[in-house]
């Protein structure tokens, strides 16, 4: 297992411990599905409820992470970080991308002995198109190209 997988596994174990249902999104979700990208943070999509915000607090506390933006009720992202990792919890993806819809199209990937729900490349593509930030725009073509190649390989 690579050092990156060990970090992800540590996060998945803690998410399970605090019973927080989360879908892996962003560049890590892309990388795990073949897109040649690397990133600095690990993004999870969660439902915005008070209980989930408390679970995120507990997650951060258990992993000795600092919490940013947690007091802002209108915030759509909570960032948790320590010297080893940066984990972002996002409450909203693209317009019309509800948690249930994204989960329905997600895939399950095994990391160590844990399974993680990973958003489909199509959903990530939609969210990145809508986010429209320069860092998202930069990898749109790579995601589209990976989807094309994946479809081609699946034909065979």
């Amino acid at each position, binding site marked *: *297992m*690579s*050092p*990156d*997988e060990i*970090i992800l596994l540590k996060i998945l174990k803690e998410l399970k411990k605090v019973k927080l249902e989360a879908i892996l999104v962003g*560049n*890590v979700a892309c*990388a*795990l599905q*073949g*897109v*040649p*990208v*690397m*990133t*600095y943070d*690990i993004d999870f999509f969660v439902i915005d409820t008070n209980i989930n915000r408390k679970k995120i607090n507990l997650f951060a506390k258990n992993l000795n992470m600092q919490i940013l933006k947690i007091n802002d009720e209108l915030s759509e992202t909570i960032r948790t970080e320590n010297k080893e*990792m940066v984990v972002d919890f996002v409450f909203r993806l693209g317009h019309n991308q509800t948690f249930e819809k994204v989960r329905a199209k997600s895939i399950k990937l095994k990391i160590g002995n844990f399974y993680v729900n990973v958003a489909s490349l199509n959903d990530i593509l939609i969210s990145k198109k809508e986010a429209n930030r320069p860092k998202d725009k930069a990898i749109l073509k*790579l995601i589209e*190209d*990976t989807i*094309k*190649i*994946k479809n*081609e*390989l699946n034909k065979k």
Partner: protein
Amino acid sequence: MNMKKDDAKIFRKIAKYEEKLASKFPDIPKHDLHLILRNLLKPKSWPKRFLLRRLKNNIYVP
């Protein structure tokens, strides 16, 4: 060079698809095509790398 036979087989497979798909998808840069195929065809046992680390001088490294 010391390369396991199994690994050499994977690289041959990647090269084969690369050749086949390059003409079908001329809009995909060859460099990207190789990396995508490598990621999609690599065995589960190969390590997955996706995180960058920030060095003190604000340089990011895998």
